[in-house]
């Protein structure tokens, strides 16, 4: 199958932050909507992202537009940074490619009650302690789980991990979906997937996954920052990882099954990675049950890592130090959500592939702490640049199914990054900025160099300009653990 090419005549700029892709193929069931400034758009045109947005618009039962966030880049089938909703009560489909292999890859923010400057002399030791406590890299993981324990994680997510002693009672409430999707069925997860996941719970993995120590550099939205317990100068910790090999195998299994389901249901898509099945079909329900279980595994994974980080903080700064979970959110997920469509409430299956849920203030799914300010959203930059804390807005609810970007977005291929720099140079550059690094792989460090990513300020400027989110706080990196 050839990549979809978007004719320039179909690309229409609506305002400084939005570009519409008019339907230009008979199989497109809606337009494309790309949130991108003039500065960000050329990269999306060059790397085929717009064609992938158009490809997603062919999914049966699409509601509204196929969207891409300003951090979007070329993916496989779906663009990374893609958002698409389908009609969950009608002919809508669910697509494993719209979730991706790292199911519920996501990020959580932990807030200590420490001032980063006071902690300064011990930050290096803290970083080393976290590196020792949290397994990183290819295939490395924690203790082998029994079948019962693994099924517990698959069914119970973050709450299960807390019950096992890996956290505080309030942690699960501060996760998207309270840290567990109710549709999860451990029996829907293959034995191969379970074999991959049995020994990896509580591990970071490799690639773009990280644990970062950060300092709150400035606050731009006092009430929201107060609700989140954030203050200028505070030491906070950002954790980014997902469902590890278990999630990868669930997606591999399900994309294969859906290739056959497509034929049975008479469905066609322009890229086989967009394989899908009607949500109400046996294949659709089976995927939802397996994906939800993998998502729960990811929440349990981040919860166990959180416990390790807390232990390391307590070792260094005393048992009375409080490290609170601000919020945990998913980047790669499909969820059944109720949204307003042309003035009426509909049940939709919202696919977020490299995108973040960003519900506005007042949404009943938000914990009481955030109901008046909106859902916290975390936008990691890169190892050497700022990260942002945002909150969702009513405009996001109205326009993007309550979704925004998930990071800075990759700008440079891995090969190009290795040609441009090397691990020693990356390390020297970060050290010169006062950023300490603990990395499991030199090649990985090089490929994750800050230059490999887009300018996070331009990305955040776009979602704020489009009124999908408000800025709350800017964070500066102090130390990084990479796989």
């Amino acid at each position: 199958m050839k990549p979809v090419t978007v004719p320039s005549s179909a690309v229409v700029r609506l305002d400084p932050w939005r570009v519409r892709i008019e339907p230009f193929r008979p199989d497109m069931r809606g337009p494309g909507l790309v949130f991108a400034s003039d500065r960000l758009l050329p990269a999306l045109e060059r790397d085929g992202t717009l064609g992938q947005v158009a490809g997603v618009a062919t999914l049966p039962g699409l509601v509204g537009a196929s969207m891409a966030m300003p951090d979007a880049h070329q993916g496989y089938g779906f663009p990374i940074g893609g958002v698409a909703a389908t009609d969950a009560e009608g002919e809508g489909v669910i697509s494993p490619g719209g979730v991706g292999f790292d199911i519920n890859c996501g990020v959580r923010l932990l807030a200590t009650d420490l001032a980063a400057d006071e902690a300064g002399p011990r930050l290096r030791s803290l970083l080393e302690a976290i590196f020792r406590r949290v397994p990183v890299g290819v295939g490395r993981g924690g203790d082998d789980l029994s079948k019962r324990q693994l099924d517990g994680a698959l069914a119970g997510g973050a709450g299960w991990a807390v019950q096992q002693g890996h956290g505080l009672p309030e942690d699960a409430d501060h996760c998207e979906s309270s840290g567990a999707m109710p549709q999860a069925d451990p029996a829907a997860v293959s034995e191969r997937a379970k074999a991959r996941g049995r020994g990896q719970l509580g591990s970071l993995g490799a690639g773009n996954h990280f644990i970062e120590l950060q300092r709150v550099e400035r606050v731009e939205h006092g009430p929201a920052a107060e609700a989140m317990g954030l203050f200028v100068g505070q030491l906070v910790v950002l954790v980014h990882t997902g469902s590890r090999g278990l999630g990868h195998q669930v997606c591999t299994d399900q994309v294969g099954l859906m290739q056959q389901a497509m034929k049975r249901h008479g469905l066609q898509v322009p890229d086989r990675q967009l394989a899908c099945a009607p949500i109400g079909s046996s294949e659709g329900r089976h995927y939802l049950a397996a994906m939800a279980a993998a998502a729960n595994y990811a929440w349990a994974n981040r919860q166990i890592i959180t416990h390790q980080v807390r232990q390391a903080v307590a070792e260094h700064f005393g048992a009375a130090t409080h490290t609170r979970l601000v919020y945990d959110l998913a980047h790669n997920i499909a969820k059944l959500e109720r949204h307003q469509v042309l003035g009426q409430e509909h049940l939709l299956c919202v696919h977020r592939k490299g995108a973040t849920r960003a519900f506005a203030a007042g949404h009943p799914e938000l914990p009481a702490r955030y109901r008046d300010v909106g859902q916290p959203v975390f936008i990691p930059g890169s190892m050497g640049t700022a990260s942002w804390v945002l909150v969702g807005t009513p405009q996001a609810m109205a326009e993007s199914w309550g979704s925004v970007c998930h990071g800075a977005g990759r700008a440079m291929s891995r090969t190009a990054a290795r040609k441009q720099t090397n691990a020693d140079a990356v390390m020297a550059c970060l050290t010169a900025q006062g950023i300490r690094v603990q990395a499991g792989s030199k090649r990985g460090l090089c490929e994750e160099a800050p230059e490999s990513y887009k300018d996070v300020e331009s990305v955040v400027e776009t979602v704020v300009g489009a009124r999908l989110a408000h800025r709350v706080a800017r964070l500066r990196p102090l130390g990084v653990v990479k796989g």
Partner: protein
Amino acid sequence: MSFRILEHTADLGLEAWGSDLSAALDQAVAALAAILAGEGAAQGLERRAIAVDEPDVDASVVALLSECLYLLEVEGWLACGAQLSVDGQGRIQGNLLGEPFHSTRHGEGVAVKAITWHQLSVVVQPGGVTITTYVDC
């Protein structure tokens, strides 16, 4: 060596070719090993029997390469080649060639999450067979 690594914004692709499907599959496994461990880092010192029975040749490519990822992650065994035969129904049988993964000798690669169907192709021409696929890193 009859493969090359393809560029992608966030991930990587591989293109592998051979005189027939078996030879191209051998090179696809070698290309995946080059991504996982660095080019030429792995040796085919051991054999693992494998059988793939999928509905079509595209699915067979995904299944074979996915099995390599599974073996690496679950058993710590790195495949770097294959001696395979393909019967008239497209069923694949034979051996993967490889060795136990060793972080010092095989540490110059990148982690691969999965084999995708994105722009997956198996092109059969008079001169041979070319396999193209992308992997999620």
